[in-house]
């Protein structure tokens, strides 16, 4: 049961990680907050840092849940699933991702 929880959290963090990395790109930032929304360099840096940390955290959780040889596979595949999900959300339900911008976007 603890393993299932770890894996769920790992999936969640890979999703938020990919989401933040997507927001750090101007084109997607504007998709969410309008064409003229400015993405400052410092915001972009923060988003990038949050994104990579989140992905790293997801990796750590994978390694806690499974033995290393298995965890590598799970993590790499989770990244693919998360990136696909974020891309599809950006295509059809982009506003859902505003939640990831927290207060930075307000």
């Amino acid at each position: 049961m603890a393993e299932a929880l770890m894996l769920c959290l790992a999936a969640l963090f890979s999703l938020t990680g990919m989401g933040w990395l997507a927001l750090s790109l101007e084109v997607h930032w504007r998709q969410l907050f309008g064409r003229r929304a400015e993405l400052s360099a410092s915001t972009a840096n923060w988003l990038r840092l949050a994104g990579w940390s989140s992905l790293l955290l997801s990796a750590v959780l994978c390694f806690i849940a499974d033995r290393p040889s298995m965890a590598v596979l799970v993590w790499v595949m989770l990244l693919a699933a998360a990136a696909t999900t974020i891309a599809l959300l950006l295509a059809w339900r982009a506003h859902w991702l505003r939640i990831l911008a927290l207060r930075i976007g307000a």
Partner: protein
Amino acid sequence: MKDSFLNRMTWLHTWLGLVLGFVLMAAFFFGALSVFDREIDRWAIPETRFDPQPMPSFDTLLQPVYARLKPHPVDMAATQQRVIGELPHPDTLPMSSLWAYTTHRDPLLQIGAEFDVPNKLKDDADEHAHVHGWATIDPRSGEFLHNNKLKIGSEWFYPMHYQLNWAWLNLGAWLVGLAGFTMLVALVTGVIMHRKIFREFFSFRPGKRTQRSALDLHNLSGVVALPFLFFFAFTGLVIFAGTLYFPVGHTLLKPLHEQHEVLEAQRTGLPHEPSGVAAPLASVDAMVAEARRRWAARDMPGEVGLLMIEHLGDANGYVSLYRAGSDQVALVGQAIHFKASIGEVLREEPPPSALGSINEFLTGLHLQHFEHWLLRWLYVLGGLLGCVCIATGFIFFVEKRKRKHADSGSQGSRVVDALAVATVTGMLIAAIGMLVVNRLLPADLGGKGDWEKLAFWVFWIVALLHALVRSAPVAQARINPAWREQCRGIAVLAVAAVGLNWLTTGDHLFKTVFTDTYWAVAGVDLSLLVTAGLAVWSARKLAQRAQTHAAAMAAEVAHG
């Protein structure tokens, strides 16, 4: 200079991808299905819908089963070609070795044996004077699975994945190997061509022209699944490299290979040859108990996954027990070998060398006999992303050329598009149609499996013909209506399969999910329903797109 290099890469990517993409599509799609091959088997053979079983007792259950196992007629016929003189009656051939293999997902047990043949071989270099027998049994009763049954998952979709069910001269396997190599080339050239990997990492713009959105999806699926696609193409090649593609151990380096076998036998103490002195078989169950005790003592408790006995009935005979790899990437491991006549441990295998571990990891990650349901589903997703990547590659190819072809009167994009329809929606129709036929045919029909195979090919050929017949609009730069028509066909077949499963077995989804949970069947049913939903949605989107396109064309004509 740089431009011509890029052009060459583009040329390679386009044409290799187009020619072998059709094979790759089958490899990825049936590979994705093979992740759940055992579950599809349960769906297709309702009498085997019970829980996975551990390796049964050898002494009480398996021993009498092996006494009933005889050489398989198919291998008898194949061996007859290689030997001088008539083979003796299969019932008289002595069994010289045997094996049994199971995983944490198998209700049924696969068993097999080798039988000695007294005949001389036609070819001196060929020294395999054996004929094989194999069977699938119910490990609770020892009953053989009736031979009219086809395990659609593991005996049809799975071999389709790596050899296209085309065994003649191994051509299917060679073709898939070539396609796997092409995949590696396509990935490398694709990355070189795609100059905005990071900027467009998440880009998919479904609202744009078909050509643009197809390219978006092509890039997206190719990039996010890059590690998966690369490693699965690569490990697929590794799995076959030693046995099929470069069997140097049996050709070029044969003397070395044999010498190695003899030396290995000396080093490990496991006899390479029978002694010629008859000996009884001690209790194998006691050996299993000892093996399990030793695994538990090493802090890796487990079940027996693979059981083998070499030199049966001989004083040199030995029993090998391999631990099932449910909790590791490698298929099986931690082998312990026992002297068959007295049951004492001959050798406990040390952990594999670094190279051995890498090999076990690479093959294991592809063959996936481990227990990890999340990773299993992620693999399905990876396989489907591979399919999306290839399918959108076809669509992009057609979209880029069809207007030019329409102006010049060329039929090129029309033919490619029809082939794409047959490999994308047609393949789904063949696979799901086969499941429908499986539920329609009576369970005791002789040669039921052969009818199912025939139905698979018929569905596929009909889908191809339909795509070709309906392809005329492509030559006028419009969409082939076969795309949406076949999507509707998929939806109808998928719903029919679920309904027929309910009607013929009584296993409806409410029962398999809630009251009498059986995820193997529920999972197949649910996947079929999701497929039906996606197919209906796609058909609707395609119809909308055709309408807007027609309106735009009409406006153009009116203005023109």
